């Protein structure tokens, strides 16, 4: 039996026409007797916890059990550590992400609109896309010291690089006849840019933003290895030195949950903004 993951994104490109409805609501539209996807998801979670608990109980690899981790999570929440770490990490990610995607949208549009800009920027973007942002951490530290700047910079770069290409593709891919249609209706460049190119490439930009957020979040943990005083990445790194597996687990779970929540929020925004799209 095939199971639709609830909310699974089909943002970029799709397939058969007939699948349109099923894509939008995978859960409810399956064959008669099948179990609804959310129920399966819950079952999977419970099973996963059970396996985890079993492994921990058998003492595999010194694994802490779910209860121990939950207790540690509660402690860290109560004394404000977890909250402080989450706020610190989120702050870095959101600042880096906001700067990165904002610049990506501007640069992507300029590259798509002016071939000269594209020719000038493309080699650098291609080059830095080939360098994992984490590989720039040593360089960032040397150049920018050990404060907030290098961390935010690396996250910024990760977000920028992954969404600039999407924006560029969106702008380049705008249907020529839409631009021609606007021109024969009397639109000038400015209007075409604001009223045709931007809305037409919005779906690409939003996909780019989601990818950008993903890579920004992925980068934050590593960025926080740069002599941070707080943050989820720092907390886990710190816990590692004390072999404090409970705290490491809490960190992993917090990172996963926050990442998921942010992605779903963007997905929701994307769905709203691109409701006009033909879901192929």
């Amino acid at each position: 039996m095939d199971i639709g993951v609830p909310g699974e994104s089909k943002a970029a490109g799709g397939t058969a026409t007939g699948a349109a409805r099923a894509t939008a609501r995978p859960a409810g539209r399956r064959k008669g007797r099948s179990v609804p996807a959310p129920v399966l998801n819950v079952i999977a979670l419970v099973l996963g916890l059970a396996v985890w608990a079993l492994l921990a109980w058998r003492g595999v690899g010194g694994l802490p059990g779910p209860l121990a981790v939950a207790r540690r999570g509660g402690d860290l929440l109560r004394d404000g550590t977890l909250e402080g770490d989450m706020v610190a990490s989120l702050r870095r990610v959101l600042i880096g992400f906001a700067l990165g995607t904002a610049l990506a949208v501007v640069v992507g549009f300029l590259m798509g609109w002016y071939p000269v800009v594209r020719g000038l920027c493309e080699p650098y973007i291609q080059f830095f896309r080939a360098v994992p942002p984490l590989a720039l951490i040593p360089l960032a530290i040397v150049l920018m010291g050990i404060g907030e700047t290098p961390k935010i910079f690396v996250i910024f770069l990760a977000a920028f690089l992954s969404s600039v290409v999407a924006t560029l593709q969106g702008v380049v891919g705008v249907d020529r006849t839409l631009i021609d249609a606007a021109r024969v209706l009397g639109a000038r460049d400015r209007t075409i840019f604001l009223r045709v190119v931007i809305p037409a490439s919005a779906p690409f930009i939003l996909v780019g933003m989601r990818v950008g957020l993903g890579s920004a979040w992925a980068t934050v943990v590593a960025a926080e290895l740069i002599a941070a005083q707080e943050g989820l990445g720092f907390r886990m790194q710190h816990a590692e030195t004390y072999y404090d597996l409970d705290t490491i687990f809490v960190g992993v779970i917090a990172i996963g949950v926050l990442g998921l929540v942010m992605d779903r929020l963007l997905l929701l925004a994307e769905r709203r903004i691109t409701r006009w799209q033909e879901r192929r």
Partner: protein
Amino acid sequence: MTSKISFRDVTRTFPVNNGAFTALDGVSLDIGEREFVTVVGPSGCGKSTLLALAAGLDEPTSGEVTVDGERVTGPGPERGMIFQQYALFPWLTVRRNVEFGLRLTGLPAAERRARATHAIELVGLADFADALPKTLSGGMKQRCAIARAYAVDPEVLLMDEPFGALDALTRVQLQDQLLRTWSAQRRTVLFVTHDVEEAVYLARRVVVMAARPGRVQEVVDIDLPYPRTEQMRLSPQFAALRNRVWNAVYHQPPAAARP
């Protein structure tokens, strides 16, 4: 008859990797004020290029395109265009699509609304004014595109295979609707099609083009009266004209053999 659109020895070449490709070669053509002219020809003979030149979306390599005696230097609201692929803005409702051109003219909102409503009613889309294009059928999409062009009230309508993607029944309905509006408002229409029957049914003159290089092969006068009817479609005169255009399109002498 005064000529509304004039092509004077128009040549358009496109640079390609090994030199230049001649899409239009010395095309001269006059379209009269309020005339309905169709253009047929094999694919690649430069029909779309011809329309783009009249629309001001493209410029001739040599020669001159004039509308009302003035050289075309760019698009203008007096020349509306309809595309085969509808070219509706998918993020705008039918009404907003129709209002797109009107918003650019700085018309007061009330007037804009009234004109959009009128255009939407004219094409029979009143019940779908607030629908997004993705919910419309092909025929409805094209009607919306036509309403969008009508709304700015152009004197010239340039139509590039507008009904080419529609099923036969819808196509006939839209042909008749187009002719009705044309009879009432008498715009100048330059209509490109690859459907010989459609070309003959709609036009007062059919321009037959040939390819490689793109050029005017023959201009066929269609001396059938308006309004055109279904009866006429089945008449022997219609069949004779259709055969003549058909032969001109499909039995073209090769380019080298022409005088």
